[in-house]
């Protein structure tokens, strides 16, 4: 990894309106979680339903979309990425450095708010908090990597990512059985089911895939995302003004 790229990426990500939006979405999650908690009291099952549906199903993919595309998309769009590419730095190093910033931002803006929202919505047991913390972390890292790759592939990454997040992960991933097994959300829920143990049924945590399958699918997606992003950067054609 390269500390200069990390610094440049962090400042670019947190210095624009994108940072405001990044704060708005977790604030929305926490606000609604507080309302749910006020209505339900300390009801772990109610909190679990809310977190799986609203946090993991909608807000975490959206926040990760903003972060994953935000750490590289604008630099491709305005061609300032050329200042990083025209340096004796391996493309893989550029990708890993930018993803490190994205993962850190995902912890701050997606994982910690999800855990806090779980508590606010009534899931006060340590196992529930841990289960959804791990799920949010795995889902965030996977989503961020996928959206980062998307930003290197298309200049319409936000629109394509939004369609993917809403149609695939939220609508189809929530209801269609065949699609559920191919959903990042379901892969990330597999460890949560293990952590919840005997309480999983009570809390309504049921992943579509087993723990091993889920973890392998996540690892494969992340590795593939990093490899393809690096290859894509090596072939990126910024100079198309004529």
């Amino acid at each position, binding site marked *: 990894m390269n500390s200069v790229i990390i610094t*440049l990426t962090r400042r*670019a990500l947190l210095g624009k309106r994108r940072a405001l939006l990044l704060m708005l979405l977790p604030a929305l999650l926490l606000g609604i979680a507080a309302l749910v908690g006020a209505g339900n009291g300390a009801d772990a099952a109610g909190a679990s339903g809310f977190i799986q549906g609203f946090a993991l199903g909608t807000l975490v993919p959206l926040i990760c979309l903003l972060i994953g595309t935000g750490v590289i998309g604008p630099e491709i769009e305005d061609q300032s990425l050329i200042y990083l*590419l025209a340096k*004796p730095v391996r*493309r893989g190093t550029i990708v890993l450095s930018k993803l490190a910033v994205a993962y850190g931002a995902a912890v701050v803006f997606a994982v910690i708010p999800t855990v806090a929202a779980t508590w606010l919505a009534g899931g006060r047991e340590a196992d529930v908090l841990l289960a959804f913390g791990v799920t949010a972390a795995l889902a965030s890292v996977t989503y961020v990597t996928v959206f980062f790759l998307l930003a290197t592939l298309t200049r319409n990454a936000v629109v394509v990512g939004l369609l993917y997040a809403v149609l695939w992960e939220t609508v189809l991933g929530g209801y269609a059985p065949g699609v559920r097994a191919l959903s990042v959300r379901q892969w990330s829920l597999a460890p949560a089911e293990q952590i919840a143990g005997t309480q999983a049924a009570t809390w309504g945590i049921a992943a579509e895939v087993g723990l091993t399958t889920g973890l392998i699918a996540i690892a494969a997606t992340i590795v593939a995302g990093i490899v393809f992003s690096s290859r894509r950067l090596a072939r*990126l054609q910024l*100079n198309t003004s004529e």
Partner: protein
Amino acid sequence: MSTLQLNAVSRWYGNVVAVNDVTMTIGPGVTGLLGPNGAGKSTLIGMMSGFLPPSAGTVTLDGEPVTGAPEYYRRVGMVPEAEAMYDLLTGWEFVLANARLHKLPNPQAAAGNAIDLVDMREAAGRPIGKYSKGMKQRIKMATALVHEPDILLLDEPFNGMDPRQRMHLMELLTELGKAGKTVLFSSHILEEVQEIANTIEVVVSGRHAASGDFRSIRRLMTERPHQYVIRSSDDRALAAAIIADGSADAVSLAQGVLDVQAVDFGRFVHALPRLATTSKVRLLEVTPADESLESVFSYLVARS
């Protein structure tokens, strides 16, 4: 001493040919890449800088193919045409970041030198987003110079600069050329190029139209047939006098004006008032019809 060689290079985007079968050698010294907007200059620089693979032909640096591998950029400094940089950083922070990305042993000193070279010491503490276009160009130039590369590829480096900044950069490029660096810069302004370039490569519509020092390019441009549109009190009498005199190559009467083409424009402009006087014709208007740089470029393409 480094030499970039383009050999039968073409580049197309879908059905659009941006660069068509260009062969040129860019050696030490200052080379100007001259051509109108959209001629293919940025595409050529993109291929020389390793960011655009040619669709056909080869680009080599001292015999080695240019592939855009990271190590290539130790030897090359670039000023891209795109204006965007990291606007939240100050000029100093940005140039220092570039020095660090090059893994220079003393990045602070290197950044300081580069900023001094482009005369940006005073404004270096301000955010890039608040710079004028000319200041941004100078900071871009500092990032290209910070690692003291052998080769400089500069895409329209004078854009947005005021006359004083332009003069300063011209002096700097001249010095770098004299020091044996290979400096290539693109421009669509002939005066800018002829001022400092030892060699001029003219590109028009993606084709290599002419090559040489500024005198030979100038000669090509002045020796081309000149077109004039003339209105007078008696176009037919004037046309007959011009033809009889032989100072023009072609004369035609159309839509109430006289179109004249003259290769030896010096002889023609001296003959015209004399012929008008002896023919008792009053000249109402004499307009050069093709003095735009584009028409000059078109002529060069037609003859190449």
